[in-house]
């Protein structure tokens, strides 16, 4: 697990949550970024998995190192009531869909809505169309993704966790955006973002809503 470089004191932690439909490649995307590796039949994530990698942004002045703490969630998990726990206090959120599945884009839209309603308005949301290496099976055009991103004012990338296209670029640009928008800043005590995690569990999504969103 511990493939990321050791954390130094000046690393700025940034919590990034990865959301999206089952099997769109959330874990693969995170693994590609963190370990520069691709496993064809990546196991289904159950609950969540946690990965981190520090990235130095040398062209910033002064140069900074961001430690991306990736909270990779399960796609099929029916425990949607848990979702707020994942995106609460997140600096960035990747909403991933699969370009070979139109349905996964619709799921992505519902995730964007969810984030708009409940997440911190500061959270930078990135719409990610994954599996762009599977051009022949494409069901979602680049334009469709871009349109949605523009409408919702999101960052947008098409990536391939398999061949690595745009994966590093996505995270580097996300880091830059986080800095420029002041979501994270060097020298800021981490506790200020952490404190949002302390909301009592009573404030979770009400039960009725959980049932409504159940995808069966």
């Amino acid at each position, binding site marked *: 697990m511990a493939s990321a470089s050791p954390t130094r004191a000046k690393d700025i932690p940034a919590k990034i949550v990865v959301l999206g439909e089952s099997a769109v490649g959330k874990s693969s995307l995170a693994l590609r970024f963190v370990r520069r590796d691709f496993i064809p039949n990546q196991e289904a994530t159950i609950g969540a998995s946690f990965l981190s990698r520090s990235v130095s942004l040398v062209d910033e002045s002064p140069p900074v190192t961001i430690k991306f*703490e990736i909270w990779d969630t399960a796609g099929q998990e*029916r*425990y949607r009531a848990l979702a707020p*726990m994942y995106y609460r206090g997140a600096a960035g959120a990747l909403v991933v869909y699969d370009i070979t599945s139109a349905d996964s884009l619709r799921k992505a839209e519902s995730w964007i809505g969810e984030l708009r309603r409940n997440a911190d308005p500061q959270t930078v949301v990135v719409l990610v169309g994954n599996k762009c290496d599977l051009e022949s099976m494409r069901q979602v055009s680049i334009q469709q993704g871009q349109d949605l991103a523009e409408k919702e004012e999101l960052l947008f990338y098409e990536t391939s966790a398999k061949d690595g296209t745009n994966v590093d670029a996505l995270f580097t640009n996300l880091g830059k955006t986080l800095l420029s928008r002041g979501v994270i800043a060097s020298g800021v005590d981490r506790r200020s973002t952490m404190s949002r995690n302390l909301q009592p*569990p009573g404030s979770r999504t009400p039960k009725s809503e959980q049932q409504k969103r159940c995808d069966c």
Partner: protein
Amino acid sequence: MKWCDTPLYHALKSLDLNRRLVSASLDGSLAEPAVDDSDSTTLPNGIDDPHYFSRSVLWRIFLSVLTVPYTGTSIDNVVASWCPRLFALRAQYASQKQQFHQCYPEFGNVDEVASTMEDMALAEVDEVLVTQNRQSLRGSVGLARLMLTMSCATNSRRSSIGKGKSPLESCSDQVAEDIISLDIKRTYLTNDPEVPHHSLFNILTVWRWLHPVIGYHQGMHEIAGICLQVLSRAAVAMPDDCPPEVAECANAAFREADAYYLFDGIMSTFGLAELFHATTVVGSQNLRTNVGNFGDGGSLSERPAMTALESVCEHVAFHMLRDHSTTLYHHLANTNMFDKLLVFLPRWIRNMFTRELTMPQLVIVWDGVFGVFYNDEVRREDRRRHQGNGSTGSSGNIAAFRRSTTIPTVYAGTAGSTPQLDEDEDAALHIPFSRTALGVVVALLLHIEDDLLELDDDFSLLRRLTSTPIVSPMVDASWIMNNAMAIANTRPLGVIPIHRRRESIATAENVSRAAASASATRLTKEELMLQQRSVALVVERVTKRIADCMEVDLEDTTSSRGNTSVRLTESNVAVIRGALRELQCVADRLSFL
């Protein structure tokens, strides 16, 4: 390995003599490698582990797929009773599978369709027996037919089939099937020829179809995968000189059907399905009060309703963990991990450690968990019969299932090896799941305690708590299991501010072993106190147990049923023997201390 050397044979043999079945399989004979390997660094890789054969049958006994009669009959009689049931189940599965694939909504009489299909399936079973040259078992096919006809009259099995939806009726069903096939494609069992994709797919889709309320959830595919794998290995590991009735239990031709019932046993009988049920409300004001009292996280108790899974997670954290390591408990509380219990614990519990442990460790843990479950069920059943009151089932699910199954009623005299579970205590806590499995969770948490105490931010903690596997593959699973059983059966001790309790939380035998090994390092004063405390607890428990069976005896003589009192006396002798053994261990420890 010869048939008469297998743990299964020994388990059945001990059943024959003194009606103890579980103790034989839990005392380590199943857990330890058969061949004494001098090279202790090599782990049994499992594939040719001869225990898989015994394991596959014992698990089915533990989960009431196969049953064992009450009175001590010969092993031959016990195993002879299995074949008709196996055939009936296989026919039932074949028929259900066919109904699922073809769907007969237009047929009014589902029963008729089902019985026709079962007849056809039995004919196929018969045919397989002929081709495999197992003619001696063909008589069981007739018995199986009889069983199916009778079960049709007595339970609602078939009408429930009619209620299942056709796979084509709604698109959400189609989606579920897509998810199942996707999950199967990408499980770690994928490249294993022991786990054929189509079998795994059939098992999961048929089960899902018959249990529309619970449906399919990710994670089930791994449980079913393990079932298939164990049965595949059972066929390989089967001793050549097995009686044909026993060999039939591992007949590779019916691996899928057998795996289905093993999986169903884990889901329905053992009650794992309950934890997959997202909307089950545990109607336990009690539990919430308890959680509120025990835990510092009082806010959790204000929630209106909890699913079974949530209440189990909270029980682990606020009750069991707190009792066994206050240091870790407070550390997790201070780092706000209890807000995030549901991020990591569900996978541990609901997947039954398929991701947390390696296969050789996993099966040993399952041996113990299922064995204790069976043990407790049998004891409960015994008590119920004794009280002449069959309606005290604390777990409705199991009770309902049992009404339609032959209840295995072996007296499980494991007094010596596992502490007795106090039923009242169990019922009062309303834990809708196996205490032993939860004991494993705590044992694993205690095992990685040092790692966890070093981490103080939520991300690092979560990363450690979700790492796969959670402990080194070299960790001895039977050691984990022993700790888990001790943890599961420990009564609340109150707060003891001691960091290292794991050496001291163990069964009597283990404690004496641990104490012996600790002699080299010298115990601290605190540890000494703990040892004394646990000695006192053992003595108290043993005294109570002996007192209990004295009472039973007195009651029984008044009923003036000659043979009943003989049987009870026998079982009481076993209890008292066990108690004496435990006291002997305590005496050993005292002399050491």
